[in-house]
């Protein structure tokens, strides 16, 4: 069993940060309808968790999931993932406020691809970005609107996010690249 790495956030802290993200979204959009779109893989359970937190104030808030494989800027390096093609949105996005949700914001290339992919499904009125962690090292000019944790982490390190929906337990760990397991 490999070491999980240095813990940056405990399960309890993860849950707190997710709650805070949810309320920041609500604060900025007290009346407006929006749809939470999670990017595969861990953006999807994260979007669902946010929807669950918002259930009291916003019963029935809509969620969707987005696979960006076909929109990557390095398609020839793309490997097959079980999420390939698994984009599910409740309706087309014309005039909709979309909040993209992902676990880690790093180079920004995933988000660029996600924005590209979203436009296949209509013309949203606005797109915002919510992430659990912003680790810096951007390669394109993209910034989050909502961010659970901001901490610059060098390229040589790997961040491991665990969410209970997919992994049984919440957690955020810093892994030295030598022991990297993506």
């Amino acid at each position, binding site marked *: 069993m490999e070491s999980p790495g240095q813990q940056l956030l405990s399960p309890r802290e993860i849950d707190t940060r997710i709650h805070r993200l949810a309320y920041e979204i609500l604060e900025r959009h007290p009346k407006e309808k929006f749809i939470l779109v999670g990017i595969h893989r861990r953006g999807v359970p994260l979007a669902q968790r946010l929807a669950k937190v918002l259930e009291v104030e916003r019963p029935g808030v809509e969620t969707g999931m987005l*696979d960006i494989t*076909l*929109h*990557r*800027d*390095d*398609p*020839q*390096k*793309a*490997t*097959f993932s079980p999420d*390939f*093609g*698994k*984009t599910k949105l409740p309706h087309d996005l014309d005039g909709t406020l979309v909040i993209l949700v992902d676990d880690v914001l790093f180079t920004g290339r995933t988000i660029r691809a996600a924005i*590209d992919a979203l436009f*296949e*499904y209509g013309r949203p009125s606005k797109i915002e970005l919510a992430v659990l962690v912003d680790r810096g090292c951007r390669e394109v000019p993209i910034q989050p609107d909502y961010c659970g944790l901001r901490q610059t982490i060098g390229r040589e390190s790997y961040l491991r996010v665990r969410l209970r929906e997919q992994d049984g337990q919440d957690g955020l760990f810093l892994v030295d690249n030598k022991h990297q397991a993506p």
Partner: protein
Amino acid sequence: MNGRKDLLDIESLSVEEINYLLETAGPFKNLIRQSVKKMPPLRGRHVLTLFYEPSTRTRSSFEIAAKRLSADVTNFTVSTSSVVKGESIIDTIDTLQAMQVDYIIVRHGAAGVPNLIAKHTRASVINAGDGHHAHPTQGLLDAFTMKEVLGPLTSRRVAVIGDIQHSRVARSTSMILRKLGAQVGVFGPGPLIPEDRHPDMQSFRCFNEVFDWQPEVIYLLRIQMERQKEQFFPSLHEYHRLYGVTDERLNYIRSKGIYIMHPGPVNRGVELVDGVMTYERTLINLQVENGIAARMAVLYWLQPETGSQRG
């Protein structure tokens, strides 16, 4: 999974590679059905179709698949090209190479031509049918279609009927089915059943023996008039009586819920009667639709060595 440079036959594919391609074809089909008609992964790439034999549906299917992936497509029409002026295949390939194409989709009457071309170009080569040898994307789309209606193909029974000897479709489709664990039986005029076929492939002497074997799918091959220089059977009428799906046989097929497949184009009244075309378990149109998704999966998977503008 890393892609190969070329797709020349089913033989050289591993079961993992076949499963990868079939699993990729599914999402492509769903995306098209979901109104996403065009996606960007082959943007900036150039696909060339090079057909030395006539074909409308295979060429169009590849062209649509390539365009859905945002590639540019050029159709190299051989009858109007310098081939008729005596240019050799290799010289043609050098010319095309100089035009910077990334994928060459080739059909030729002689077996092995796609392999020859593949050795002489950095572009990815896809065999779209060479002589009696192979037609790998047909095998893929057939397996994809059968999996869609039957689920996993392990131990499923597929009876292939017609000119097995001269059919690249029979070769590629039975090869992929056996790799996926299905059982393949063959039936047709005696001289058209290869004696050197795999020992696992049993042959039948009459249609009743086919039915007794209880196949889940009956796969009818097209009688290739253009390849029938020698006479292997007395007449088309006789062929229909002995090897075709007649009204009577269709009634039995319907009662057992057997699926019918055919690579097209069909010769009505020869391989099958009109009633087959409206039979609810005829998969012929589904094969056409799935052909595009399967070819998208192949184009997406292959990796040309021409250097990329992106990534």
